[in-house]
């Protein structure tokens, strides 16, 4: 069991921002300019959901909204739509955080998968309602499946490397606050 690598909450928040920047950087690299039939998992969404279910104080709603809106702008998506859906999903998971503490990982995984697919379907529905062409169905689902499959890996990494564990009843952080 790895100990938390940072002592303060702020450091984790900064790490989250840094992670988003690194992800954006690698996405923007012009390595592949031909269309491809597969889509990489959305790692940022994985980290957001994994952290929200473990240490919700590390990913406040305002931060999620700001980062996701920036990603929408930089990645040529309809601005605000996916950000709003991810925020809704994250807040839904946050409200299940206490419940999730006592459940096995498989249940958590299923819950996250549901949220990821709900985001994809919700995005398509909204785009169709406002008469825009939604992105190709197959590719969206491939991405949702990839994101779901990457989730356990991200959870493992954030537990082993970052030391982010599920908080248990009565845990205190470095400053002695209850979490």
């Amino acid at each position, binding site marked *: 069991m790895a100990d938390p690598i940072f002592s303060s909450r702020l450091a984790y928040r900064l790490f989250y921002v840094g992670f988003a920047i690194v992800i954006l950087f690698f996405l923007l*690299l012009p390595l592949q300019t031909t269309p491809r039939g597969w889509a990489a998992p959305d790692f940022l969404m994985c980290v957001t959901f994994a952290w929200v279910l473990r240490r919700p104080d590390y990913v406040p709603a305002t931060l999620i909204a700001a980062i996701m809106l920036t990603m929408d702008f930089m990645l040529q998506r309809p601005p605000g739509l996916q950000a709003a859906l991810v925020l809704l999903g994250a807040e839904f998971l946050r409200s299940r955080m206490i419940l999730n503490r006592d459940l096995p990982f498989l249940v958590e995984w299923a819950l996250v998968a549901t949220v990821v697919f709900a985001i994809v379907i919700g995005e398509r529905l909204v785009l169709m309602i406002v008469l825009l062409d939604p992105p190709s169905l197959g590719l969206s689902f491939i991405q949702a499946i990839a994101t779901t499959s990457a989730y356990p890996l991200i959870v493992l990494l954030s537990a082993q490397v970052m030391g982010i564990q599920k908080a248990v009843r009565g845990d205190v952080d470095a400053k002695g606050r209850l979490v």
Partner: protein
Amino acid sequence: MAYERNNSSDYINPIRRLLIGVLLFILIGFFAVWRIDSPRIERFRAQITDQVVPSFAWALAPVTFLGDVFNDFRSYQRIYEQNQELRRELQQMKAWKEAALQLEQRNAKLLDLNKVRLDPKLTYVTGVVLADSGSPFRQSVLVNVGARDGIQDGWATMDGIGLVGRVSGVGKDTSRVILLTDSNSRIPVTIQPAGQRAMLSGDNTALPPIDFIESPELVRPGDRVVSSGDGGVFPAGLLVGHVAQGSDRRLRIRLAADYERLEFLRVLRSRVLTPLYDPGSLLAPAVQPAAPIEAEQPSENSDG
């Protein structure tokens, strides 16, 4: 007990709900404004990109270089076959070169006889590809020339050989090029030698399909496809690619530009486009004011 209270005060209290509501309202507001008045938000997006991506450029270039080196290294595995292939092609090329030289001389003579001047407006600006769209759903690249270099929306972009896409979204130092493979790309083309007019509509695959061909029986796989210049957006006669038939028997285009390696792009300085202010005038011509027509009437009568 303490944690229950902590939880309820931290996560479920009304102020928190209000905050979430306000955040959602802002995000949905962005989306709504984008949907209603896209150009303004897209300009905003271009400005953000313009600020952010050049600050990454120092790191983007070396990492891209490493990625390319890795790709090249993988291609060494079949270097022998490639060598053989290249020798064969070289043989063919030598014959073609002879033909080309003769044709060039003849062409120069004929042009001289006709006193033809080539269109001097068709000059170009060359830019380096900084970044791609970053998403598998969009096909576009960002080049490092922008409004500062006089780039305008709608200009055609080529690599050395063929058409690559069109400029859409210009920042001060960068501009975005929507590739022909993007699902939003529609380009009017002519298929040679039949002279068939058609529409090249990208669908996020490597071989975009051709739509609206008048008589498909006149078109064969292998025919040359050039831009037709219909609609006044693109210059005519730019090489786009060759016709190919997909496994679904649909006519598609094998693009001439090397999409595997987009490094340098030429942005063609086309004529100045009529700016589009509102989408309404695209659908129906603006109503002419009545006064000038009446003013012309007497002059016509006097002529007659």
